[in-house]
């Protein structure tokens, strides 16, 4: 019984991590950038949803609004901060991403104050639980799981079957060659950012429903752990990100239920370090090497 509820708990958390991890993985796959600002996009998504709901907008408007907000923000960040640095050294791009992350966090702190604000989660997903085979599963967990799985299926279809998905794979394989084939590299990169942030937006709402509060720094730790998930699964690999997300979620719940809640974050990072040492490419990542 306890095991089952913890399992559901872990899967719920894991699916949120997986959604966020996908954004990291896709962006890394295409421009080799650790998008530090990804976690903070989630934070912005959380605030948009909060503001929309407090303004009295119904859920079916507030949720898409927050997702669209995330997409727009990511595209603006890409245009303003990242695209001027396409040819710059990777370290410059990475520092810029850290700068963007800091900027979003501190702007939010200026506007909304550093204090966390309660998120009306019951408006989005009603409280209560369903009984499946004698086990109670909360609506939040159920919705989270279903939404996450559906989003991942959609994403897989998008990447594998659609024309834009083919362009994405082509650009991540060889940017120059893709350009010669008539693929617009810049719009493909923007599209990747958009898809990644749409998933982040969904993740933001689900996360706010699980931990019903919003704060300027909520994105950084969530982002970090999702990033760990992406690395664990093999950065650049979409199924890897999903796998890594679930692994981290389950692991975190396991450590907490064993009574080590103060050490959860340390364990997550320790897992990252161990995995990187044993298999630097993660579960499903490809090894990359420089041509000599």
């Amino acid at each position, binding site marked *: 019984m306890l095991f089952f509820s913890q399992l559901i708990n872990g899967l719920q958390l894991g699916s949120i991590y997986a959604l966020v991890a996908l954004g990291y993985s896709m962006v890394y796959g295409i421009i080799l950038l650790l998008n530090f600002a990804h976690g903070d996009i989630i934070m912005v998504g959380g605030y948009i949803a909060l503001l929309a709901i407090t303004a009295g907008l119904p859920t079916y408007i507030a949720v898409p609004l927050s997702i669209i907000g995330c997409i727009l923000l990511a595209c603006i960040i890409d245009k303003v901060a990242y695209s001027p640095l396409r040819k*710059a050294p990777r370290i410059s791009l990475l520092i810029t991403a850290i700068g963007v992350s*800091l900027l979003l966090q501190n702007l939010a702190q200026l506007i909304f104050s550093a204090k966390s604000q309660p998120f009306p989660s019951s408006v989005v997903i009603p409280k209560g639980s369903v009984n499946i085979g004698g086990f109670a599963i909360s609506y939040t967990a159920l919705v989270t799981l279903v939404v996450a799985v559906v989003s991942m299926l959609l994403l897989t279809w998008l990447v594998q079957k659609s024309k834009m998905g083919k362009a994405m794979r082509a650009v991540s394989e060889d940017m120059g060659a893709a350009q010669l084939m008539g693929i617009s590299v810049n719009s493909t990169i923007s599209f990747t950012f958009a898809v990644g942030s749409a998933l982040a937006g969904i993740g933001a709402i689900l996360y706010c429903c699980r931990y019903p509060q919003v704060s300027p720094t909520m994105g950084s730790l969530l982002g970090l752990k999702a990033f760990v998930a992406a*690395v664990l699964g093999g950065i650049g690999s979409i199924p890897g990100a999903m796998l890594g997300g679930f692994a981290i979620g389950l692991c975190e719940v396991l450590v907490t239920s064993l009574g080590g809640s103060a050490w959860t974050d340390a364990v997550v990072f320790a897992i*990252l370090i161990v995995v990187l040492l044993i298999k*630097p490419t993660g579960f499903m990542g490809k090894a990359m090497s420089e041509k000599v």
Partner: protein
Amino acid sequence: MTKTPSSASPSLYEDKRIISMPVRYLINIVAIAVFMLIGNLIISEGIINRTYTTILLQVGVYIILAVSLNISTGYLGQLPLGHAGFMAVGAYVGALAWKAMPHGLGYMIIGLIVAGIAAGIVGIIIGIPALRLRGDYLAILTLGFGEIIRIIIINLPDITGGTPGLLNIPKYSNFNVIFIFVILTCYIIHTMMKSRHGRAILSIRENEIAAEACGINTTYYKVMAFSVSAALAGVAGCLYGGLQGSLFPSAFGFMDSINILVMVVLGGMGSMIGSVLAASVLTALPAMLQFLASYRMVIYSVLLILVMIFKPSGLMGTYDFSLTGLIEKAIIKIRGGSKNNAKEGQANE
């Protein structure tokens, strides 16, 4: 100096040094002594008050942190995001050592050395696995390490004081101590970078494959640069403890690592004087202009982005300051370019 075979043609390469090495050392030592004297005077004569004295000392600590991070970031070309973690290791180990020992100058130095060694060893332990990986993994690994250190400090209250803090640390860090260690740090880094070891570190930043083809053991030099950087951060952390008299885990978070990184990036990755200037300005300004406090991080982040987009080399590029170099330039100007009698010194570097 050997005469190069084609000395007839106007030579681009010439030994620019007209002041011999012993004289250079003398000039620098005198300059340092004068600085130290002035510093002591303005503090003891009460020209600057207590608050400003503390700010001045903090500037010193942050200079050490920035120039030490500059080894990994500017010279080695990696991006560690856990510098505050090494600082924390040094701060806590040093403070605990100081508290365990009686007071005295010798014990103070022992504490600082222990702090440096501890942080250096942690640097080696983190560096060996991390530096085998590509650049951005190193960033994330060191970030994770910094968080782990902080969590360990919080969760071991019996040893580290936990969240309420480690209190009653001997306040050894006066102006002279900090000043001497700033000078010492800069000297160590300068001499290291002017040696074959320093060039090996630079070659890794420039082109790792070519460095290996030149027979340079890249892993060894990466770990060396990284651990020297960590050890010096540990010393800075120890001085920080001696300055504050108390230590709290909240002072060693991710944001504090970023804070140091901003100094290095703004000053110009690879420029020691750039790091020194940026550390001074970015420590002193927010401390003096309190009304900026809430905007500080916003301004930092915007600066970071703008510098990367418009001047990725930072404010000072890779320019390195040399007092004797400036004097030489002045002499050359006064002499009006008569280069022939300029070869009194056979020093080279």
